[in-house]
């Protein structure tokens, strides 16, 4: 089946294309795009006044299945993605049981085939049972479709184990994603150590708990030649370290999340559990450093760390509430509004942070508009002004600090493999 999307403002960050054109989809691929392009066999879709760009790739998502289906499932999580213009996600392995073997990866693939509506690339754990002790079978998980490995949610505390993981990963060249946290410094801590933790009478997580492990993993990546990817970078010192080691040629990549760019520890005021995440929200200075890190390429991409938790989970005494917020449905509107204001980048460069760049980090197809590329794309209506309303989320969870934020522009349609997956029929 062929589809011709006509008169869209076509934005492709990889080739820096920005032009009103027609785009022809043939089956699950992009066939061609050009002004005035036509095809007698194609079903025509008019996109006058709309933008068309590659579907977003979110390399840090918790779909919670198996084990925490009360928070999210592959069905609800991928629908949230589609509604947010995200056509591919990497799903984290800290499920119950954790995805630490081939069977687990296959389970994800089967559930995605049955219930998913966007592409899902499983991440496997780096250690068996996420216990930080024994190396998980990376090879057989890669065969089953795993694209990266991480004990995300729990850092690998044993340095020798981390060294072995990185050494071993070089057989495959697959990225190892570091959840950079020194747990000995964050035990029983629930927010950033800073002015706000003093005000709320809480013992905070020192920023050094993050940067110390970043330093360690950079050193180990340098020694082993492995590809280390840093999840959810949140501090200034982390950015400085990554920049320094990248310049020395260490194979390191890094992501940050929208909330670290847009919020500070102040958001925790009043024991707001929707501002509780790990790493915790930091300070204005860190925000500025993250912006600088994005602008100079130290930070490669933006990922949401979509971490759904039910209302019941979050509506608890602050220290009892779990870490994390949802992000799939707010990523694109925030990117093209509040994040744009922060980064002051052109649209192509902004989109690059959530399309071709994350694809490159995780070595995934997609993220580009090119003949022969997967027909995963977003049609965006730049005009409507609206307000983020968590009650309208397709995700099973509502834990967002961005409820009520005003934004402009809305996902008009999302295509995965040439098929419209959003709006839902």
């Amino acid at each position, binding site marked *: 089946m062929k589809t011709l999307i006509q008169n869209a403002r076509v934005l492709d960050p990889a080739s820096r294309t920005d032009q009103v054109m027609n785009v022809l989809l043939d089956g699950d691929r992009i066939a061609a795009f050009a002004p005035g392009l036509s095809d007698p066999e194609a079903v025509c879709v008019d996109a006058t006044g709309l933008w068309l760009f590659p579907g977003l790739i979110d390399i840090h998502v918790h779909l919670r299945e198996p084990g925490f289906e009360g928070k999210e499932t592959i069905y609800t999580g991928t629908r949230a993605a589609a509604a947010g213009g995200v056509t591919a996600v990497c799903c984290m392995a800290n499920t119950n049981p954790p995805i630490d073997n081939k069977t687990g990866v296959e389970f994800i693939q089967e559930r995605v085939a049955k219930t998913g509506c966007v592409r899902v690339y499983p991440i496997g754990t780096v250690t068996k049972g996420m216990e930080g002790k024994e190396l998980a079978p990376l090879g057989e998980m890669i065969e089953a479709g795993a694209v990266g490995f991480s004990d995300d949610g729990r850092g690998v505390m044993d340095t020798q184990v981390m060294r072995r993981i990185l050494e071993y990963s070089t057989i495959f060249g697959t990225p190892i994603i570091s959840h950079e946290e020194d747990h000995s410094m964050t035990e029983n801590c629930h927010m950033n150590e800073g002015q706000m933790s*003093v005000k709320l009478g809480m013992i905070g997580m020192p920023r050094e708990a993050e940067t110390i492990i970043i330093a360690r993993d950079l050193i180990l990546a340098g020694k082993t030649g492995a590809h280390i990817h840093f999840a959810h970078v949140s501090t200034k010192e982390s950015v400085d370290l990554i920049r320094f080691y990248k310049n020395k040629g260490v194979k390191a990549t890094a992501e940050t999340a929208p909330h670290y760019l847009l919020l500070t520890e102040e958001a925790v005021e009043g024991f707001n559990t929707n501002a509780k995440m790990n790493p915790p929200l930091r300070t204005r200075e860190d925000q500025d450093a993250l912006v600088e890190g994005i602008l100079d390429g130290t930070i490669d991409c933006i990922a949401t760390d979509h971490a759904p938790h039910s209302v019941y989970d979050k509506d608890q005494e*602050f220290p009892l509430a779990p870490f994390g917020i949802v992000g799939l449905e707010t990523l694109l509107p925030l990117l093209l509004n509040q994040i744009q204001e922060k980064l002051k980048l052109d649209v192509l460069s902004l989109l690059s942070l959530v399309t071709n760049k994350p694809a490159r980090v995780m070595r995934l197809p997609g993220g580009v508009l090119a003949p022969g590329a997967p027909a995963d794309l977003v049609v965006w209506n730049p005009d409507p002004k609206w307000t983020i309303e968590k009650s309208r989320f397709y995700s099973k969870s509502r834990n967002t600090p961005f409820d009520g934020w005003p934004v402009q522009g809305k996902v008009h349609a999302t295509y995965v493999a040439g098929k419209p997956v959003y709006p839902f029929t």
Partner: protein
Amino acid sequence: MRVWRRKDCLGLRDVSRDEIELVLDTARTMKEIQSRTIKKVPTLRGKVAVLLFYEPSTRTRTSFELSATRLSADVVNIETATSSVVKGETLVDTAHNLRVMGTDVIILRHSITGAPHHLAEHIELPVINAGDGTNEHPTQALLDMFTIREHKGTLDGLVVTIVGDVLHGRVAHSNMWGLLTMGAKVRFCGPPTLVNPQMKDMGVEIYHDLDAAIEGADVINMLRIQKERMTRNFFPSIKEYSRIYGLTMERLKRAKPGVLVMHPGPINRNVEIMSDVADSDSSVILEQVTNGIAVRMALLYLLVSGEKESSKKLDETPPLFEEING
């Protein structure tokens, strides 16, 4: 006329000078009641105060219990061991069960920071924080300020040195907020492991040398040092802590003449405070305990018999405050 408008007393961080003065002034009247032969007034007759304690406490619990009974309220004591908390009920659910049984005020002590704030948001009843985790213990700070004011007449411009575990110290935190609001100068002193440098941003002075911290102080408030901190490497031994941060008569000489020595109790004699200092003329430690009743009576009165109570249960109008005075 000054009125109390808050539903709860959760902490002193955002409480104004007027509000603190109202509590302290009300407490003065309450203290006067304590010097009468009949120490009980009917103000809260027919009201129910529940003491919901998720952490062991003798002094604070007894003090609240006596305060409530002297105002003629009925008091229910709940401690974790006997509550349904062990059965997995949430704090909010427990509190709602108490509410529908006719409770008028919940006095909550909890090991979890922010627990009273969470509860207060989810229940219409007044909640009094009797200590939450590492955050605040507002009634202790109010009784400390009451005691200081009784002796010094004012808090404005006084130098108050607070010594000990400031990091985990809810008494220290509430004192910091209250004293700063009331115009006092606050010094925190303790080992760097137990005094957070960020406290400086709140407007207090940080000391690690006890002698320097005592120099010129009007008040010295010695916090109880908890032995369990030792195992987490906050300091190596009680003996060493005592040597560096224990208050001796010798050290006390550096303070201003007429210095008040305070302690929220229970005291560890010869650990943070030497026995002779605790028993000296400078010590007002037992006065603090006495004043605790007056301050807690004042708070209960302000929170429970306030304006919001006007229309219901009016066949028996609670006596006005003025009438108690008269």
